[in-house]
């Protein structure tokens, strides 16, 4: 029951995830492993250091993971950020100007997910 509450709290899509990952045990297990995921940290550190390839990698990982686990708001926020940070052939991010706006959204969505998982 707590899984439903957690997903409702974060606005996640539990039903689809159940369809894909099959068991609640698995979903719960990996939701908890998500608490150990360091990609947000990687992203923030890299942005601070101006390391765009690494920043893109962080955003990309966050996008993939949140999508797998059906953390919809986090997926959408990190997807937007990942697109903005995507590098062209010369290694320049697609839309660096949008980052200051997109990053807080990712942060907010991330802490909502973390707080929600804590209920489980």
């Amino acid at each position, binding site marked *: 029951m707590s899984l439903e509450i957690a997903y409702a709290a974060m606005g996640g899509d539990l039903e689809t995830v159940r369809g894909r990952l099959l068991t609640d045990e*698995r979903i719960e297990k990996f939701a908890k492993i998500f608490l*150990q995921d360091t*990609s947000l940290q990687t992203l923030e550190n890299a942005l601070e250091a101006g390391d765009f390839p690494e920043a893109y990698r962080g955003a990309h990982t966050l996008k*993939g993971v949140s999508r*797998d686990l059906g953390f919809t708001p986090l997926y959408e926020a990190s997807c937007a950020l990942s697109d903005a940070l995507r590098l062209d052939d010369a290694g320049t991010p697609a839309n660096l100007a949008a980052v200051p706006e997109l990053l807080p959204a990712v942060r907010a969505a991330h802490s909502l997910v973390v707080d929600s998982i804590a209920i489980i």
Partner: protein
Amino acid sequence: MGGGCSSSPSCPRDSRGLAGDAPEPSGTHQRPIDKRELECESTRARSPGWKELTIATSLNHSKQTILIVDDSMLNRALLADMIGDAYRIIEAEDGKQAVAALQKEGTGISLVLLDYVMPQMNGFDVLEVMNRNGWIKDIPVIMVSAESDAAYIERAYELGVTDFINRPYDVNIVRRRVMNTLMLYQKQRTLMGMVADQVYEREKSNNLMVYILSHIVEFRNGESGMHVLNVQAMTEMILTQLAAMTDQYPLTTEDISLITMASSLHDIGKIAIPEEVLNKPGRFTDEEFAIMKTHSAVGSDMLDDLELYKDEKLVKLAREICRWHHERYDGRGYPDGLVGDEIPISAQVVALADVYDALTSQRVYKPPFSHEEALRMIRDGECGAFNPLILECLTAVADDLESRLNRGVTGREISVESLRVVDSARDAGETEASSRTLELLDYERMKYHFFASMSNEVQFEYTAEPPMIVLSDWGDRKLGLPEIIMDPYRDEAFCGVFGADNLQELCHRLRSTTAEEPLIDMEMEATVGGETRWLHVLARALWSDENPPTYLGSLGKFVDIDDRQAELHDLQFKAYHDPLTEVVNGAFARKVITERLGTEGACDRHDDRHVLIVCDLDFFKQANDTHGHQFGDRVLQHFADRLRDSVRSDDVVARVGGDEFLLCMGCSVDPRPLVERIHQSLEGEFEGFPLSVSMGVATTDGGVRDYDELFRRADAALYHKKRDGRGGYVFYDDLSDQERAFSLDEPCTALSGIDRNDSDQ
């Protein structure tokens, strides 16, 4: 990731246990390869029957290995969990680790799940390395990614990926894709093995049929039965040589193999020649020769008349060989009088092989000629006329020819066949080994790792493209370096250990080797764990087969010889020093002093004065007798210390007998005050034992530069000092002529003589 080996023999990574794993530490390097797996390997190796067990595991693929390459710990864990524990999982967190795992496990890995976005080397970089090394043909790759861009997908397929799994993951899809791909490859491997076996079988029966047929002809000829095999072998050798020497004739490996087989049929036309002509001893009449000559045309006609398979390449080749193997390059042959390259190359080569074998074999009308004689006759045009190019080939293979045409010994046909299977596979552009070969390779790899882990050497494999070095398991721990290092010549840690200059030298020496002599060895100082140590490097450069060969990399080992070096120093010290007093021994003193004195005759360059003193401890025997030998030893040690203290550090102090010591020093001024001072500093007492010292002194004054003579003089002086009352010193120069003469005649000197009884031990 700690923990020991579980009870299961193949030690699976329990994917369900992942939740308990520590979080991925950012910035630190996690090992890509499950170390438990390796520990397991050695545990297994120690138990009886390990070999059978390992082979059984690897042959039956009872647990296939899947390599998961993804920079996100969560992704790897999720994939491992979804795939389930029916497989052994190893993980790599970036492309570099993935390449290392592939290098190490080879086809032990049944499938790779590969992410694209990764630090250092991304997924495409990994695929490029897999292509370059040919791994992609044997190890299927499934790309796992959120990318859906068409260009991206196309590129991935171009690089040889088998399939895609798109995010978000769906357990059923992941399992199904993984299973399908594994099954497909398993099937392909089995089929490859079956095809190879069938090709081999078919070739074998073809050869067998051709052999039987040609043997029938030979049997009727009364020939040895080896003729066909010899012609075959020689045809193959010459054609191979020809193809290597020139591309004037388009000869593929398949052509060579077919011509070789067809060569057996060159004389089938003889079946139509009447037996009395065929086997006539002695010369043919013109009429008989005319009949005999028809066999070439008859042979080709027989093949022409075949109802089936007439257009097969083998039959076509056999027909031209039958018809024209008695043509001559100068146009004087039969049946058609073709000139030069009008004669097909196949017939030209078989003609030569036929002549050579006829010359070197016994026939009813002639004895056998020797190899050398046959070669000479052919070259001199005594027996046919041949294409100069083919004669050149004959010269090139002449040495091999004799040894390979082992007359009367069968078994040759087997090697021809096995060559052919391998070659035809190469021609098709695929050197795909059968599964049996792959399994043997896996076994060899396992064996190599086992022995490498047991030896105390650091083994390495270096590939030039991409520049990367892989160190053996034990080696990386020993050197404090990661197991795999990209671009090692520019890697800070790697250069820190070995030194940039050393590496440059090593690289230079490896690249200066040749394919024939690829070995080098050198010694270098390395910094291991902050400590300088001597390493011996033994390495082999790897060169490609091309012409000119390119440098592919190297393999070799670093052996730590520092301990050995220290041991050597220790031994050297022991060889030169007296173990009790730790001053040098007589032998070493002699060597050093002789060097310092220089050679006689070069005196003018050595006009510096040297003083040699032989000292003897008076009443030493009493010290031993009264207080015991241990005390005596301590007296000697003390005395040696005093001696050392009384002279300069570069003067020589040596123990030359029980209680006899030697001093040798340079002295440009009057030596008497010096000797007086030394004598005074030596006298005294040690723990109640009075130290009374007698000394004999000799100098190089007067041009004596010979050590033995100096020593004899000092010894003689000491002898007189002892005889005239102990304590004090005597210069040899002060002895009267009579005293000198006396001591010369005296058979025993101070060292062996006068007061041996009361002062020596």
